[in-house]
């Protein structure tokens, strides 16, 4: 009893938050799962339980394989977005890590897109990624024309096969600076002694990075991957702003919105649950791992 008097008040102070999250996170997820196994396909409401029918429908019977198409789009987007932002972020951090004159300026400029919403940046990216080529080229295609790199001109996101790779470009622009900031903090966290010790042992610059510095950055890289990964799964604003909702660029998050516009709640819920599962298979092991490693510290 005395022990409870010791820690009890903490639990009480935390209580309201726990109740809110229990309702608004876990409760509403349960509710969404319930809708996803019902036949609530119109605004009139549900007549009953249909098991996993909505899920099998999405994967096997959806018109034109719409859901699978949106997953394929999400996959292309995610690969390009994560690879692009990780590489650029790491490169920038590498270029800046040992201190260059004007570092503050470079850091500020590289990072500023992060402060802007996708809705605002989408306005200009829609224009920069104008599909016109040759004489009528605008935006980035005009830049390529001007640099005599005409072969780089492309239809951007309007390309039916690889359009989603172009859609990832604004996302890379927006978040590479963030990855840079994370890596820069990682670089700076490596003690000078460690570098000096490696230099004393006669390690070349290449070996210093390969064997001493990069291994130390693994936790940072993992955090960055997790953050970018879950952002990518949820990507909605950028696509709504650049292309608007349409077949070519549809991802599950946009499909949910489209299904809701037709009051197909069951379908929207089923897509949301698939999306949640996709995020959970990555996040849950990560959170469990984080908690374990913290305990052993």
């Amino acid at each position, binding site marked *: 009893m005395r022990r409870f008097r010791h*820690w*009890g*008040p*903490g*639990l009480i*102070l*935390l209580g*309201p*938050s726990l109740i*809110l*999250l229990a309702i*608004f*996170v876990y409760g*509403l997820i349960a*509710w*969404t799962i319930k809708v996803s196994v019902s036949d609530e396909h119109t605004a009139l409401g549900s007549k009953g339980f249909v098991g996993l029918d909505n899920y099998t429908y999405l994967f096997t019977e959806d018109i034109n394989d719409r859901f699978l198409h949106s997953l394929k789009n999400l996959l292309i987007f995610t690969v390009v977005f994560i690879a692009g932002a990780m590489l650029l972020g790491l490169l*920038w951090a590498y*270029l800046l890590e040992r201190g*260059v004159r004007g570092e503050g300026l470079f850091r500020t400029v*590289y*990072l500023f897109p*992060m*402060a802007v*919403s996708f*809705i*605002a*940046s*989408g*306005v*200009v990216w829609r*224009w*920069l990624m104008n599909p016109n080529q040759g*004489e*009528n*080229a*605008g*935006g980035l295609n005009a*830049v390529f024309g001007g640099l005599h790199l005409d072969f780089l001109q492309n239809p951007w996101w309007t390309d039916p096969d690889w359009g989603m790779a172009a859609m990832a470009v604004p996302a890379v622009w927006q978040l590479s*600076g963030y990855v840079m900031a*994370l890596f820069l903090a990682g670089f700076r966290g490596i003690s000078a002694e460690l570098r000096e010790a490696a230099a004393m042992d006669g390690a070349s610059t290449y070996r210093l990075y390969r064997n001493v510095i990069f291994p130390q950055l693994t936790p940072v890289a993992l*955090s960055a991957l997790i*953050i970018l990964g*879950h952002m990518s*799964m*949820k990507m*909605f*604003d950028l696509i*709504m*702003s650049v292309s*608007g909702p349409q077949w070519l660029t549809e991802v599950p*998050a946009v499909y*949910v*919105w489209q299904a*809701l516009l037709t009051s197909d709640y069951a379908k929207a819920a089923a897509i*949301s649950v698939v*999306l*949640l599962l996709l*995020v959970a298979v990555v996040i*849950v092991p990560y959170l469990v791992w*984080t908690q374990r490693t913290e305990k052993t510290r």
Partner: protein
Amino acid sequence: MTRIPRYTVLLLFLIVVLMPAYVLVVTSFKAGSDIGVTSQWNLPSTWTTASWEKAWTALRPSFLRTFQLAIPVAVISSLIGAANGFVLSRWRFPGADVVFTLILFGMFIPYQAVMIPLRDIVLTLGVPPGIPTLVLAHCVYGIPICTLIFRNYYATTVPEDLVEAARVDGAGLLRTFTRIILPISGPGFVVTVIWQFTSAWNDYLFAIFLSNTRNGPITIALNALAGAQSPDYAASMAGALITSLPTLLVYVLLGRWFIGGLMAGSVKS
């Protein structure tokens, strides 16, 4: 890499990153007749602020509403986060780590997975539509990140002995928190306030699900202005700049802490 190539690469990327900003600014000052796909990169032949006026007229009501959204969200979530973070780092109870992990999960969920019932539940609770509903949503779903930020902050800056000493002196939880902890929580507050202000200001997903152009925030209004069938490009770009000004200002003025906030987004500190 030697100095010259390093600077060349850095400068090239600087230009690439700034390109969209250049297009935004020059286009926003162009007259309608001056705008065309092939002349995108040119400076305006005559500079005019007509599009800025048009965009401001269209966005003004929602611009003011978004302050009514982002400021309360920033303040309320920070206070909740400070209390939670304190308990989970310095006034722990059995199972605190598991509870913390359960809280953190809420930070990563795709909000689509709660959005459908969320609309119903706020209606049932009688929360007025528009800004009040959005304040509630951002505060609730902001609990995980704010808790995380303060937990890490207290765990690294507040010595355990300080809290123990207060306990020995007979100070209860609330007294310790308000008298000893809150006064040294400034840096944590700066980070959560920036983070929550920015995410509430820039949010579109909650906004489109829970509000409309008449009662919603600026992202909704901007998308309506820029997303029409034949959008006015100059006004759209001016609108995008107006929309971004508050968060850019926060970023420029409080850049150092802004980065601190971004760092806090990674679970491990």
